[in-house]
């Protein structure tokens, strides 16, 4: 095998299953790649070579003993540092969790292990998944492998960067308002936010419970679907987990459910035009034309409530986070500051939180605390929930007429590191197009649509009705194949070669 880091996940799994390569060799190649490139990219906050190789050896042993291998057995994966995993720290990009080693595995981690997926390490992220650039991490900034001066998106920027940089063929992120789709778009890879409740949140450190959802990053729609099927499924430990079969996303990605011929596709009026970069709009328009040429019936759909998605989101998510993050008080785990023997409990809690949280987390805790306060609840949190209902109704009305909805994933390509660091509202606008389906709960995919302004990747967003995840994979796979035919190969083939050799 020439370069194991260039293989898709499905190809790697097939090679491992066929005995053409061992899981240990695959893991070793990716660990080497991380060592060579991560000084520049800084996608990972924790890599444990021994642990990774041991997991790979377990897959090789299972194969040797003739045991059944899952469809992704032996494939390496980069895990966002928001999931708990025994044997490794979990920091959530925050100083307040510095040194915490969880005593239990997230359900997603259990499923990965059962499937023989080999976790390479934990990836960098905006602190507690709050941000769109991975600049809000207490453990350094992650760089976009397309242009190291640019952001890799966020909050799952470590995961998107790892996949784009060929440090891992697969990664897992979490999406609360766009934290999988936006990083996927700006790094030129596939990212999916499954239907809310499809992937267990047990062991996913909560930012906003009613919005958080784990999902896959991959370099192809099929790979994303294979990982989606490993991750998803009912979990009795998560009360919001869907107790129904996982939609046939891998079959859809293989084209087994058909192409786009005859499908109705809605282009959302409110998620394009003003505020979207010319290069982004141009790639989006080309995708719309391509879908028409493939036989889809493309119509324009108006969802007027989407205009209020951003303010509603920035009340609901901070409200929930103000409560979810209360437990980080220095009493039981992680950082404890100010415990000088004189300060009381409340002072130690306050000092710990003041030192342990970064500015964006504090901003959202304050926003949420305010929005839930007596006398303000109805005007803020209550009103935002009403908007959420209206957005859900817009989606439900749209899906009575169309199979999928379409928009650009982000208004712009990856912006320069530091550009929006002091302008929270500009930063929040990176998620303008991804917020509505988060509030609704339906599945959404970002798919590479070509290069836009500054020769940086542009993503197109495919959205579908709740529990119709297969629809985004079906359309995504058809588009992917038509686009790659046009490009003469995957978009990622055009990524500049990273300087290698720098030992981490």
């Amino acid at each position: 095998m020439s370069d194991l880091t260039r293989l898709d996940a499905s190809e790697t799994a097939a090679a491992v299953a066929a005995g053409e390569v061992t899981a240990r060799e695959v893991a070793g190649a990716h660990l080497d790649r991380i060592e060579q490139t991560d000084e520049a990219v800084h996608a990972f906050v924790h890599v444990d070579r021994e642990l990774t190789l041991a997991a790979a050896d377990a897959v090789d042993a299972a194969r040797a003993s003739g045991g059944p291998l899952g469809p992704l057995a032996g494939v390496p994966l980069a895990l966002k540092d928001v999931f708990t995993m025994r044997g490794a720290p979990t920091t959530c990009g925050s100083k307040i969790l510095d040194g915490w080693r969880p005593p239990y595995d997230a359900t997603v981690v259990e499923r990965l292990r059962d499937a023989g997926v080999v976790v390479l390490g934990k990836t960098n992220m905006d602190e507690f998944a709050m941000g769109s650039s991975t600049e809000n991490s207490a453990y350094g900034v992650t760089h976009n492998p397309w242009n190291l001066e640019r952001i890799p998106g966020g909050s799952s920027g470590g995961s998107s960067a790892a996949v784009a940089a060929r440090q891992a063929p697969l990664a897992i992120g979490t999406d609360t308002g766009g934290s999988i789709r936006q990083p996927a778009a700006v790094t030129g890879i596939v990212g999916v936010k499954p239907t809310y409740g499809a992937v267990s949140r047990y062991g996913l450190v909560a930012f906003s419970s009613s919005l958080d959802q784990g999902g896959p990053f991959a370099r192809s729609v099929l790979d994303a679907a294979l990982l989606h099927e490993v991750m998803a499924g009912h979990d009795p430990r998560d009360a919001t987990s869907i107790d129904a079969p996982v939609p046939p996303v891998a079959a859809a990605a293989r084209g087994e459910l058909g192409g786009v011929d005859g499908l109705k596709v809605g282009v959302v009026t409110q998620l394009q035009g003003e505020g979207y970069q010319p290069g982004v709009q141009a790639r989006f328009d080309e995708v719309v034309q391509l879908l028409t040429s493939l036989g889809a019936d493309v119509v324009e759909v108006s969802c007027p409530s989407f205009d209020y998605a951003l303010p509603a989101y920035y009340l609901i998510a901070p409200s929930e986070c103000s409560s979810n993050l209360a437990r980080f008080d220095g009493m039981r785990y992680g950082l404890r500051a100010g415990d000088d023997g004189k300060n009381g409990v409340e002072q130690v809690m306050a000092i710990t939180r003041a030192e342990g949280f970064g500015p964006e987390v504090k901003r959202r805790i304050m926003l949420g605390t305010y929005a839930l306060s007596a006398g303000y609840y109805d005007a803020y949190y209550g009103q935002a929930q009403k908007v959420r209902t209206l957005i859900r109704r817009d989606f439900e009305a749209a899906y009575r007429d169309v199979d999928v909805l379409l928009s650009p994933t982000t208004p712009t390509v990856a912006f320069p590191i530091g550009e929006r660091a002091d302008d929270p509202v500009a930063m929040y606008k990176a998620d303008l197009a991804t917020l509505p389906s988060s509030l609704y709960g339906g599945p959404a995919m970002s798919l590479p649509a070509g290069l836009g302004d500054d020769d940086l990747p542009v993503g197109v967003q495919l959205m579908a009705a709740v529990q119709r995840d297969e629809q985004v994979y079906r359309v995504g796979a058809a588009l992917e194949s038509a686009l790659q035919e046009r490009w003469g190969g995957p978009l990622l083939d055009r990524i500049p070669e990273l300087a290698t050799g720098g030992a981490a």
Partner: protein
Amino acid sequence: MTTPSSDVLMSFEDAIATFDPVMGLEVHVELNTLTKMFCGCPTEFGAAPNTQVCPVCLGLPGALPVVNQKAVESAIRIGLALGCSIAPWSRFARKNYFYPDMPKDFQTSQYDEPIAFNGALDIVVETDDGPQSITLGIERAHMEEDTGKISHLGGATGRIHGADYSLIDYNRAGVPLIEIVTKPIEVEPALAPAVARAYVTELRELIVALGVSDAHMHQGSMRVDANLSLKPRGRAEFGTRTETKNVNSIRSVERAVRFEIQRQAVVLSSGGTIVQETRHFHENDGSTTSGRVKEEAEDYRYFPEPDLTPVAPDEAWVESLRATLPESPLLRRARIREEWGLSEHEMQSLINAGALDLVEQTVALGADPADARKWWTGEIARISNERGLDVAVLPITPADVHRIIVLTSDGALNDKLARQVIEGVLAGEGGPDEVVASRGLAVVSDDGALLEAIDAALAAQPDVADKIRDGKVQAAGAIVGAVMKATAGKADAARVRELILRRVSGA
């Protein structure tokens, strides 16, 4: 401190001559489910600290709650027993506050959407004119989780102030609680303290009859918060209330209410105002003192718990639970009292002994109620007191007691021997028949053996024999005593007496 002094109290009679008390009672009941409210940890009382914990009840990052269906079932049964409506759809909320006893720094509790609401409970209070029946309104019964337990150590008082350090035990964190809240209680002012006591007593019996909690106030599995305010006679709107916590016995409920009436009356009569606050009850002198006075009212920022789905009990399930409700303790007591012909006092001592169920079961096996009461509230209750245990947990069953009663009425045992049989059963020597056999406790029923002993006794005390011949029959007692002694208590005293009289009269 802005708290008014509570050194001076108005007499209770003066207080109720001027003011009308309004009470609101909040009772927390710890459910006896095997596992906690939102995780699979055991709930058993008394385990070593922090041994009954997991990522969920420790609130570790990433852990999620799942509602215990058995707790929902208990909540619905309590609601139904209190005549409440059961909400077809209700939610949990988060009550947010920072304190180390809450591992998540919020408590998951129902808030504005309780599972049960709008019920009533009938109670009976003793008045100068005899028992009076009163119906109290139940506002709601809702589910929540208990907090961990903090011990403040190293100080003199066991309170947080002055303590060197504090230890937290999270075994209790997440244990299911039901909070039952009354509607405002406005009764004849003089009766208020007794009504509070009677309510808690009645509610406790109902909970125990439902089998959903052991409802031990001293162990904290049933806790009472008493809200009380006063309003000048004739005024409609309620005054400012205080909430007295730490009321750890049924008697204390009555004392705490009485104290707050007297304390608030002084404050109001002297032109002061009542501070809305939490107060602590002190068992030793029956007083209440101000708890932490907050600069401003605590804002718990309640909002619906997003990690849980709504509780939506199916109507058929609720109806099937309704069919499992026990007879109301009040009606049951009235029925039993009538059936057994007991006085109110006799009934009360039976209840106080904790033996009503046991006596009823013994009677159900065929025993006479008077005999069953005699043993359960007599010898067995005495031993339970001695050992500091509930009668119900002693290793003796209604079947055992029934057998002892049968043996006694057949003349095979006398009372003294029966007590020894009870002792043997409690010592684990087996059932009554086994104890009788192994200890050789059968009554001596052989007249020949008894007459031998009687003759010996009469010969030893000829003067007594003469007295009996002279018609002083009561003198026979001395001979009976001697015979009992000679037979090591194994004789039937009545038979012995009969034989003595026959012997002396020459029959």
